[in-house]
């Protein structure tokens, strides 16, 4: 029965959703292979271990906690040494991480230390004898690859939100572990962490995303997008690269290949053409609505519902109608 190590990503002392997803995916993968233990690894500054007990909710049998002031911000070299060390000692079949900015950085470092294979941006996985079989979108999502990864342990970084798993709560053992070497004596040091100031829902959590493109024409006109998002009540605001390039919105709101990959229940694309790099970040949304004045815009090929029209006319009308619909229900 496979033992799987899940790396629980934290930021500023708090566990991130991708960290919980790694634990849940490890649970589901172990269970599908006939059971086996899931160990969650939490690395951070003193205090981070407070989150340990709750990881049982996501299916961890054991939580390994390492607290040290050198892990207050992401410490790539010391963290990769710790993850590599655990993977070699614990007889693990697999190391799972989130394919976030941190996980995409950490996974290949650990692979380098251990000399084991690594794959990132994985949307599904299962164990098959000696192999790990993974699904991984390539070519900007235009092709889906099924890959066979041979190696023990193998490192797999999972696309945020892609691997759904049901609850499998248990009471985990909590163990404290020690750092490898001096975690403060690294060459690469993270000297600053700037958290977004937005009070809005994070793009990764929002059930609805209203996203604006160059068709909005100016930063001021994004008011229309904000108002529509406000009307839904549970919506976050997204943007295309054309928009972040212009500086109308911050890069943190960019959706697509070089921005966030999102999969909300509803994605409303306002004045967005639907370039392949944008589609790569949102095409798995459950329902897509597009508003564009060009009836041939590629966004209409992925949209469930389209309105051909001027955003300056359609969006205020939609905002009013959504508000009315929500206050009626």
């Amino acid at each position, binding site marked *: 029965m496979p033992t799987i190590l899940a790396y629980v990503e934290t930021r500023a002392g708090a566990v991130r959703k991708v960290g919980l997803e790694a634990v849940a995916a490890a649970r589901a993968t172990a269970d599908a292979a006939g059971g086996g233990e899931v160990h969650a690894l939490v690395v951070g500054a003193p205090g981070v271990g407070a989150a340990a007990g709750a990881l049982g909710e996501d299916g961890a049998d054991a939580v390994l906690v390492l607290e040290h002031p050198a892990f207050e911000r992401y410490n790539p070299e010391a963290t990769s040494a710790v993850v590599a060390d655990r993977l070699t000692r614990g007889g693990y079949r697999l190391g799972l991480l989130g394919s976030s900015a941190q996980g995409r950085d950490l996974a290949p470092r650990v*692979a380098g230390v251990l000399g084991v294979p690594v794959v*990132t941006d994985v949307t599904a996985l299962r164990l098959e004898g000696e192999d790990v079989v993974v699904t991984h979108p390539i070519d900007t999502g*235009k092709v889906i*690859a099924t*890959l066979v990864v041979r190696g023990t342990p193998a490192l797999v970084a999972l696309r945020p939100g892609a691997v759904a798993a049901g609850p499998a709560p248990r009471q985990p053992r909590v163990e404290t572990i020690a750092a490898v070497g001096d975690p403060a004596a690294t060459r690469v040091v993270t000297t600053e962490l700037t958290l*977004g100031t937005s009070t809005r829902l*994070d793009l990764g959590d929002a059930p609805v995303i209203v996203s604006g493109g160059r068709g909005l024409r100016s930063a001021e006109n994004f008011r229309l997008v904000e108002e529509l998002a406000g009307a839904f009540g549970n919506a976050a605001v997204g943007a295309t690269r054309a928009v972040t390039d212009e500086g109308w919105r911050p890069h943190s709101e960019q959706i697509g290949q070089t921005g966030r990959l999102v999969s909300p*229940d509803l994605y409303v694309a306002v004045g967005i053409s639907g370039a392949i790099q944008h589609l790569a970040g949102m095409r798995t949304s459950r329902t897509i609505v597009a508003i564009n004045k060009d009836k041939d815009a590629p966004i209409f*090929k992925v949209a469930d519902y389209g309105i051909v029209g001027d955003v300056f*006319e359609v969006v205020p009308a939609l905002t009013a109608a959504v508000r009315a619909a929500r206050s009626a229900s």
Partner: protein
Amino acid sequence: MKIAVCIKRVPVQEGRFAIAPSGTAIDEAGLKYDVNDFDLWAVEAALRLKEKAGQGEVVIVSLGPDAVQEQIRKALSMGADRGLQLRASAVPPDPFVVATALADALRGGGYDLILFGRVAVDDAFGATGAIAAHLLGLPCVTGISTLEIANGRGRARRELEGAQEVMEFPLPAVLTIDEGLNKERLPSLKGIMAAKKKPLEVRAATLAEPRVTVRRLELPAERAAGRIVGQGAAAVPELVRLLQTEAKVL
């Protein structure tokens, strides 16, 4: 400043993708190829650092079949000094194997910086640079969108989900470049002429047995055909009705 930039030849992503009859490869017919966008930003970063330093050398390295010489020449026409092709019949789908071959070729080269794009848009792993850094024993920062170099040290910013972090590191180092750092220059006519005469060395790549292999490639399931609900604001009531009764998201 002696800088190496590792670049990859990738299909232009706007093309029409089809799967070859083998089921494990992309049908190359009809696709156009270019330098991976992220790698172009890495080339641009190297050229600017060399220009700022007033001296130095920018070496372009690419692993793959002879066709990659076209991409190496493009980087040379932007202003890089020389090229190195690590000849292989194909680029294996295992980033560890590619990183090992690149590290072997770069080891002992005396580079102050080794740059990669953050991710190749075709294989989409973004792992090669960090693995190569480890194999070379060099510090590494991935996915950077700003870069300052002074007095043998560097400082770079990384975009996170809804946040940013700044990392500092000593040179020599390996960096992988994200969007936002720069926009690549277009090769000038003079640059294109000059590139033809620049040295391009070819060596055989030593490739280990890949541990990541392709079982199957498929085109993604098409989204069910959507519909145009209507034109202009007049279509809004019908859209709202569909969102409520059909999509059930409102």
